[in-house]
C-alpha cells in the first residue's frame, strides 16, 4: 500500500484533523511571523483540499461507493452486530458537500490575506477560521448523530466569535449574540432529538438508526425537532431573521464560510429526512383527523409551503434593503427557498411509482442548486467585501460610479449577478431550469412563483449594479483603487468555477450531482454498505 492509498484510507479523519490541528498551531506560528502564519493557514487549507479531492476521486471511481472510516482501531461490535465506535461515512452526498466546503475554504483564506491585513488579533481570527472549517467538514462527513451535534456546536461557537470579530462595531457584537442564541437553541433541540432516538434504539450511528427506526410516536417528535432545529440553522423563513444580521455584520471572508455552514445544516436536514427516515416515509401514513395521507406527501407539502414563503419574503426584503451585505443576505434566504422548493417537490413525488422521474429531477435540481448558490452568493459577498475594503461604505445610497475605479470587481459582480438571478449561460440558470421544470410538473403555480421571484431577484441586483457601479464618478471616491490581488484571486477562483459549471452543466450534473442524488434516495444501499462495511 503506497502513501496515497494510506491517505485515502484515513482521509475522512484527516480532512477534519488537519484544520483542527492547524487551528491550534496557528497562534504558535503567529508568534514567529504574521506572513508565515498566513502562508501556514493557506497551506493547511490547500493540503486539506488536496485530501478532499483524493477522496472524491476514490468515491466517484466506483458507482455507489461509501467510504466508511471507524475511529479507534478495530471496530468493537455490540451484541446486535453494530459498531459502537464513532464512524465517518462518505458517500456521493457527503463528498459533494465537502467539495463545496473546499472551494469556499480556499477562496476564504486567500481573500482574508489582504482583506483582514489591517486588523489586529489575526492569530485568533485564523484559529477560529480553521475551527469553523474543521467543524463544517465534520458536520458533512460524520455518520454519527452525537458527533454531528458536536461539530454543529464547534461551528456555531467559532462562527459566533468571527461574526463579532469587529468588536469596535457594536452591531457586530449584537449580531454575534443573536447568532449564538439562535444556534444554541437549534443545536439543543437537535441534541434533544438525538437523545430521544438514542433512548429508543440504543444507537447513535445514522445507518444503524435508519435500519432500526420504527416511526413511533417518539420518532415523530424527534423528526419534527430535528428538521425544525436544522431549518432554523439553514435560515428558512420565518426562522431566517438571524441570517441578515449575521451575514451583514461578519467580515466578508467569514460570511463566505457562513454560507457553507448554513448549507451544512441544510445537508443535515436532508440526511435526516432521506437517510434516517427515508425507509419509513413511503410506508407510513399520516393520520390527520379521519384522513390518512402518505407521510412523504404531508412532509413535502409542508416544505413546499415554507419554501414559497422563504423565496417570497427573501426577495421582497432584498428589494427594499439598501445595505449591500444585508441585501445579499436576504437574497441568500430566497436562494435557500429554491433549494427546499425542489426538495419539497421531490418528496411529494420521488417515492411514487408513476411519478418518480419528476421527483428525481427535482432533487437533482435542488442538490445542484446547493452548489450553485454557495458559489453565486459567496462571490457576491466577496464583492461586497471588496467594495467595503475600498470605500468603507456598505450603504448603497452612498455608493456610485465604482465601475470606473474597480473594473475587475465590477466584472466579478456582473458574473455573480447573472448567476444568482438564474440568467443564461451561468450556473444558476441550469439548476433553476431543472427546478422550474420539475416543480411545474408537480404544480404549475410553484414554477410560476419561482420564476417571478427569480425575475425580482434580478431586479434586486440590477439596483445594486446601478447604485454602486454605474453613474458618474463621485468626487469622494476619486482615490478609490482596485482591491489587492489576493482578493481578486479569491473572487476569480469562484467566478471561474461559476462560468465552468455554467458552460458544462451536464458534466457537473453527471459526475457530482447525480451521485449525491443517488446517495440521498437509496437509503437501503447506505445502510447495507455502512453496516456491512464495518
Amino acid at each position: 500500500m503506497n502513501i496515497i492509498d494510506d491517505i485515502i484510507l484515513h482521509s475522512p479523519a484527516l480532512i477534519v484533523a488537519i484544520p483542527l490541528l492547524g487551528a491550534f498551531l496557528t497562534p504558535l506560528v503567529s508568534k514567529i511571523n504574521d506572513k508565515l502564519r498566513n502562508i501556514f493557514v493557506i497551506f493547511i487549507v490547500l493540503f486539506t483540499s488536496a485530501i478532499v479531492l483524493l477522496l472524491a476521486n476514490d468515491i466517484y471511481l466506483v458507482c455507489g461507493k461509501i467510504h466508511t472510516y471507524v475511529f479507534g482501531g478495530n471496530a468493537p461490535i455490540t451484541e446486535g452486530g453494530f459498531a459502537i465506535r464513532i464512524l465517518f461515512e462518505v458517500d456521493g452526498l457527503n463528498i459533494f458537500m465537502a467539495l463545496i466546503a473546499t472551494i469556499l475554504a480556499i477562496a476564504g483564506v486567500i481573500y482574508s490575506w489582504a482583506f483582514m491585513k489591517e486588523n489586529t488579533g489575526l492569530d485568533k481570527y485564523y484559529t477560529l477560521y480553521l475551527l469553523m472549517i474543521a467543524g463544517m467538514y465534520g458536520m458533512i462527513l460524520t455518520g454519527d448523530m452525537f458527533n454531528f451535534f458536536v461539530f454543529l456546536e464547534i461551528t456555531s461557537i467559532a462562527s459566533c466569535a468571527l461574526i463579532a470579530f469587529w468588536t469596535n462595531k457594536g452591531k457586530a457584537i449584537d449580531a454575534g449574540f443573536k447568532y449564538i442564541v439562535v444556534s444554541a437553541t437549534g443545536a439543543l433541540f437537535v441534541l434533544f432529538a438525538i437523545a430521544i432516538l438514542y433512548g429508543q434504539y440504543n444507537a447513535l450511528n445514522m445507518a444503524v438508526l435508519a435500519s432500526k427506526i420504527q416511526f413511533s410516536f417518539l420518532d415523530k417528535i424527534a423528526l419534527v425537532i430535528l428538521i425544525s432545529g436544522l431549518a432554523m440553522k439553514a435560515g428558512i423563513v420565518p426562522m431566517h431573521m438571524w441570517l441578515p444580521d449575521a451575514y451583514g455584520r461578519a467580515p466578508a471572508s467569514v460570511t463566505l464560510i457562513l454560507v457553507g455552514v448554513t448549507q451544512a445544516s441544510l445537508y443535515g436536514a436532508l440526511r435526516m429526512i432521506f437517510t434516517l427516515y427515508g425507509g419509513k416515509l413511503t410506508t407510513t401514513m399520516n393520520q390527520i383527523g379521519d384522513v390518512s395521507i402518505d407521510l412523504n406527501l404531508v412532509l413535502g407539502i409542508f416544505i413546499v409551503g415554507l419554501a414559497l414563503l422563504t423565496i417570497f419574503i427573501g426577495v421582497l426584503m432584498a428589494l427594499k434593503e439598501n445595505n449591500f451585505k444585508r441585501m445579499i443576505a436576504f437574497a441568500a434566504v430566497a436562494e435557500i427557498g429554491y433549494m427546499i422548493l425542489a426538495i419539497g417537490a421531490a418528496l411529494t413525488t420521488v417515492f411514487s411509482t408513476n411519478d418518480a422521474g419528476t421527483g428525481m429531477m427535482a432533487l437533482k435540481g435542488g442538490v445542484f442548486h446547493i452548489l450553485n448558490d454557495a458559489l453565486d452568493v459567496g462571490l457576491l459577498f466577496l464583492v461586497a467585501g471588496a467594495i467595503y475594503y475600498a470605500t468603507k461604505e456598505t450603504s448603497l445610497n452612498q455608493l456610485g460610479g465604482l465601475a470606473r475605479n474597480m473594473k475587475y470587481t465590477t466584472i466579478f459582480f456582473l458574473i455573480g449577478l447573472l448567476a444568482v438571478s438564474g440568467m443564461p449561460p451561468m450556473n444558476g440558470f441550469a439548476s433553476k431550469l431543472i427546478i422550474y421544470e420539475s416543480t411545474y410538473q408537480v404544480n404549475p403555480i410553484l414554477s410560476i412563483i419561482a420564476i417571478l421571484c427569480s425575475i425580482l431577484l434580478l431586479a434586486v441586483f440590477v439596483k445594486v449594479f446601478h447604485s454602486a457601479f454605474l453613474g458618474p464618478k463621485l468626487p469622494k471616491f476619486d482615490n478609490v483603487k482596485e482591491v489587492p490581488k489576493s482578493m481578486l484571486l479569491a473572487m476569480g477562483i469562484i467566478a471561474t468555477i461559476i462560468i465552468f459549471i455554467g458552460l458544462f452543466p451536464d458534466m457537473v450534473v453527471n459526475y457530482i450531482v447525480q451521485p449525491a442524488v443517488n446517495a440521498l434516495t437509496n437509503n437501503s444501499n447506505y445502510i447495507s454498505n455502512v453496516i456491512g462495511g464495518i
Partner: protein
Amino acid sequence: MIEIQDFLRTLATNSGFWNPLIWGIIIFIALLIAYIIRGRGKKEYKKQTEQTKVFLSGNPELEKEEMHVKASNVYWGFMESFKWLYNGLEKMHTGNVSDYILWFVIILGIFFIILGVI
C-alpha cells in the same frame, strides 16, 4: 475518466434541454445581426454638438453627484404600491432575538400539528 465529449453534452431536463454552447452560438448570431443593422445607420451626425448631447426634456444638466439616482429611490413606485405588505414585513423583522426564537416555536408547533403528534 472525463472525456472530451462530456464537455459538449446537452443537459436533459424532464421535458426540455439546455446546452450553453448552442445558446452561445445563437446569441453570437443575434449580436452579429444587430451589429450589421447598426452599421446601416446614419453616419453623418456631428460630434460635440446638440446631436450627441443627452436630452433631459429640456432641463439643464445637474451636477454629477446629483445626477446619480440613489438606491432607495430606484424602486420607489414599487415600494409605495406594496407599502401595506412591507409594513407587515417590517413588523415581522423586529431585530429582537426573543422574536426569532418565538418564530421557531411557532413553526415547531405547526409541524407537530401537521405530523399528527399533537
